């Protein structure tokens, strides 16, 4: 059996005396959708931050395509193909929707200053390529009409879609979404559901989500990882998790 795309082994994160993440392990196989759930304050975003390089883990290992990531800074991890979103949307609000997508493709752009200053054909072609790709994704997330609007003027649901488009335009292998359904109405959640499936099926992206919307989670996840107060609680398929006593206790409290 081929190795998992993402392997997290015994991840630990300490802030001074506080143990925010207590030996969490999880595997994500290529083509899977894995959800990370747990009560509020369980440390899910901290786990994300550790995996994606925004925090330096106190201990443990993170392997992506077999390569160790846990000592790398966030931007290098992103270049390896692991891209994430944030709980509070971090769009470039004063830049237009199109510009947001162009910036995201910075690593694929023609960055040679001389070629750009002289407006050489190679440079122009590359810029056009970036624009085309942006247009493609804007179309997919239904934001093409808003391409020239400032990102900050978009409605909440639209901003969320833009954030995902922005990630996809970097051609990631693993997409980590932090509460993508937060603040969305049922219809938008349904569309998100379809989008995620399409990302997996059509664009061959593997997904790791943090989510609170149980309907969404149970519906699309191949695997669910439950953590509580920083420590792992249970791992399994949706059906297994639903019937797991410990999980029920953690969410609903003792009888």
């Amino acid at each position: 059996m081929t190795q998992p795309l993402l392997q997290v082994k015994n991840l630990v994160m300490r802030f001074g005396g506080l143990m925010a993440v207590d030996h969490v392990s999880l595997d994500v196989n290529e083509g899977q959708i894995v959800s990370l759930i747990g009560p509020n304050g369980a440390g899910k975003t901290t786990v994300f931050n550790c995996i994606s390089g925004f925090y330096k883990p106190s201990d443990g290992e993170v392997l992506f395509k077999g390569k160790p990531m846990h000592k790398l800074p966030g931007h290098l991890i992103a270049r390896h193909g692991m891209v994430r979103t944030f709980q509070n949307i971090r769009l470039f609000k004063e830049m237009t929707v199109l510009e947001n997508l162009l910036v995201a493709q910075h690593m694929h752009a023609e960055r040679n200053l001389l070629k750009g200053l002289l407006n050489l054909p190679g440079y122009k072609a590359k810029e056009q390529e970036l624009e085309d790709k942006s247009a493609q994704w804007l179309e997919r997330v239904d934001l093409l009409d808003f391409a020239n609007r400032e990102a900050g003027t978009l409605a909440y649901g639209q901003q969320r879609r833009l954030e995902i488009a922005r990630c996809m335009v970097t051609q990631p292998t693993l997409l980590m979404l932090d509460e993508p359904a937060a603040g969305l109405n049922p219809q938008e959640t349904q569309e998100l559901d379809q989008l995620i499936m399409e990302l997996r099926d059509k664009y061959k992206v593997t997904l790791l989500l943090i989510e609170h919307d149980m309907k969404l989670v149970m519906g699309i996840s191949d695997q669910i990882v439950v953590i509580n107060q920083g420590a792992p609680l249970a791992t399994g398929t949706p059906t297994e998790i639903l019937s797991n006593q410990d999980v029920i206790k953690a969410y609903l409290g003792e009888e």
Partner: protein
Amino acid sequence: MVPTMNESISYFIQQVINGLTVGSTYALIAIGYTMVYGIIGMINFAHGEIYMIGTYITFIVIAGLTLLGIESLPFILITALIISMMVAGAYGFTIERVAYRPVRSSKRLIALISAIGMSIFLQNYMRLAQGSRDLAQPGIISGSWSLGTDEFSVNLAYMQLIIFVVTLICMILLTLFISRSRVGRACRACSQDAGMTNLLGINTNHMIAATFVIGAMLAAVAGVLLGLYYGVVNPMIGFIAGLKAFTAAVLGGIGSIPGAVLGGLILGTAETMTGAYFSAQYKDVVAFSLLCLILLFRPSGLLGKPEVEKI
């Protein structure tokens, strides 16, 4: 002539004493920086100018008292201290109210520029008020003790002792104030969580003003002490002193008052040592270099806690 062992040791100890003297005054100014940064997260660029004003007031008071025929040194010292502190406190209060409060909620750069503008304004204000040239008032409190034996002697100037004592008294009073008094506690609460403090009914604006006033008064004390020690003043002394004091505050850990003291002492000593053993011209370079080094390798300072960015 090669210095003897004793002479070398004496020289070294002398420099340490000199360094700690200057360092204590840096500490006094640094406290003002660290307190303001702790409570509103801003660098009070104009703080050095308060110190400068304190020095000018000292000279004015001394000259004025001399004119009135008063010669008693303790009286002169105490009066200079009190009046300087009052004036500096008033300036600190006004500066906060006029240049900082309106921009407190703006972007960092905006507040910084307002502060720089205030600093430039005060330098030139003083220049118009008292002229741009050096004004010298040497040797008010002169004389020193010679400690030790003939071979191994160190001078402790009276002024140096006064600096140590006054600084110590200020530290003690400040510590008592911060930890015991109502206002002091409120200031501390403010620096930890302004929003919550506000909700608890404490007027954070008043606390911030109090912080500025206290910091200004301490800077004024430094102005009095250094004015008497060096005996010279001009409108630009605040700039360099301010930078050095800020270095001290960062060195010790910005936001930490003991840190500011520690930073001040270390900086003063390092600077004096450089001047004594290397070259007097490079004293200032030492201060700036220390600043850069600290920020590069340990930005949280010696006594500060490393901050974790919340994402």
